[in-house]
């Protein structure tokens, strides 16, 4: 999985590409922690529109980071999900907890 990072004020954009499973969940975890631990970043916009596969390990990693960011008084939203990824998100109930937007612009609006 490739992870592209961009910072805009107190909001971090993480753009993932590839397969999100138990192997790549670790890469995701450290990418988020690197930017949130002791830094001024508050919010996370997680763009998964280029994620081609996700399983329960990927979902677990997303949910754990969501809880952490919430605890730090920040917010996290998800952008884009291919149909097969969306099905897994829906079945897991993650969509009821974390908001999912179609594009980054509306996600940024949604954060405010």
């Amino acid at each position, binding site marked *: 999985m490739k992870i592209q990072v961009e910072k805009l004020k107190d909001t971090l954009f993480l753009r993932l590409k590839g397969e999100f499973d138990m*192997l790549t969940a670790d890469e995701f975890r450290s990418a988020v922690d690197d930017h949130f631990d002791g830094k001024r970043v508050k919010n996370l916009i997680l763009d998964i529109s280029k994620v081609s596969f996700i399983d329960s390990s990927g979902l677990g990693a997303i949910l*754990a980071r969501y809880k952490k960011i919430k605890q730090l008084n920040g917010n996290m939203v998800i952008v884009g999900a291919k149909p097969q990824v969306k099905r*897994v998100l829906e079945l897991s109930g993650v969509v009821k907890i974390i908001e999912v937007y179609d594009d980054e612009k509306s996600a940024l609006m949604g954060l405010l």
Partner: protein
Amino acid sequence: MTVKDRGEIINYVQLEFLSVPENVSLSRVVVASFAAQLDLTLNDLEEIKVAVSEAVSNSIIHGYNNKPVGKVYVTVMRYEKELVIIVKDEGVGIKDVKKAMEAAYSTDPERMGLGFVFMKSFMDEVNVVSEPGKGTTVELVKKLELPKKTTGKQAPKE
């Protein structure tokens, strides 16, 4: 496992690998390539990939405690009317299989207990046999017989 008579095996592929995370995607790719030769939809293939990923991840994470210490065996078999995938480990095993298969049940507080939920929703059959100290075998079955319906309606009968 109740050994069902599924008829004759038309083809099969077997993998044996070390319990390391890199091998989860490898096993997904092999099973999906095997399944792609059959009359399945792209959606079926996506579902099979998730189910295989869950079973293999469980063997590595739970069976072998996330350590490169054991072997995982994945066998994918084609029968006339079914695709059968068997994921086997020789790890710690499961004390209460029925409980383990319940939604949201996990022995790991960091996890969500969704693996079996996905296996059950995405496959036609999920059979588990496990013995503490001996290991776990998960059988995942996808039916091939019925042509997949694209609408909810059935063709009118004569």
